[in-house]
């Protein structure tokens, strides 16, 4: 049983925003909604790093925990999806999500907040697979077509990987072994440091985080 995950290789991401464009095009996403975005740390400073961020399809998703109408569910493949017919657009999931994944279309003149929209891992939602209704509400269901998320498959440098977590781990492990570095960019040691070593550096002067 596949366990779907995203993995972004910060050594490879060149901040081209191809993943963002692929996502918007694939699902016909309206203005103001970004299911995926590229975040750059120390932008413009030598050593800058970028990663592509969307819903991480958490194993213990905080959005599911805080939703007052229980509109979230998790598929057998570990993809976190939601029913837009139930969503009341309260925004709790946005506050709970550590990645800022939930998006809210604002269509009214007074900033009326619409139903939540987020990355579906290209798995659609609770409508008939590949139906018009599913596309209109959730975007294209590539998993039902035997394909993987458009953002990962379109990534020119293959920085963004998407698919079964075990397979991704194998790909990344081989990559790190071949180039001899890069496995330590993210993780515990980067965030909190190791004994006798300072934790992650603050953004450099002149750069923006």
């Amino acid at each position, binding site marked *: 049983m596949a366990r779907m995950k995203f993995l972004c290789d910060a050594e490879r991401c060149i901040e081209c925003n191809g993943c963002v464009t692929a996502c918007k095009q694939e699902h016909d996403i309206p203005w103001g909604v970004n299911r995926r975005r590229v975040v750059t740390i120390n932008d413009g400073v030598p050593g800058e790093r970028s990663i592509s961020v969307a819903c991480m399809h958490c194993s213990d998703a905080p959005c599911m925990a805080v939703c007052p109408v229980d509109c979230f569910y998790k598929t057998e493949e570990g993809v976190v999806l939601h029913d837009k017919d139930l969503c009341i657009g309260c925004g709790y999931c946005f506050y709970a999500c550590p990645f800022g994944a939930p998006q809210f279309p604002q269509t009214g003149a007074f900033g009326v907040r619409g139903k939540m929209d987020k990355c579906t891992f290209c798995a659609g939602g*609770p409508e008939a697979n590949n139906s018009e209704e599913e596309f209109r509400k959730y975007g294209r*269901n590539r998993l039902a077509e035997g394909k993987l998320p458009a953002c990962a498959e379109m990534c020119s440098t293959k920085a963004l990987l998407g698919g079964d977590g075990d397979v991704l781990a194998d790909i990344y492990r081989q990559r790190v072994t071949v180039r001899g570095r890069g496995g330590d960019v993210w993780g515990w040691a980067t965030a909190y440091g190791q004994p006798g070593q300072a934790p992650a550096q603050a953004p450099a002067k002149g750069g923006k985080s």
Partner: protein
Amino acid sequence: MIRSAWVIGVAAAAFALAACGERPQVIQYKQGAYQGKPDQKPYANAPFDGNQQKWDNDLRQRNQAQNEYKRIGS
């Protein structure tokens, strides 16, 4: 003397038992159950027609397209 000892005893008992009536103030969170419509499996439709094994294999094979070390045949 007896009276003051009695007062001190009552005060000590009141102090010692002060927290006995305390109730837990933390909300016991219960995970809600999904209230929406059921979703179809991704392999329920054509071309897989319910064949999960084929879907798994196809996806695993497609996943390797993201591994350029495999793609260039090295």
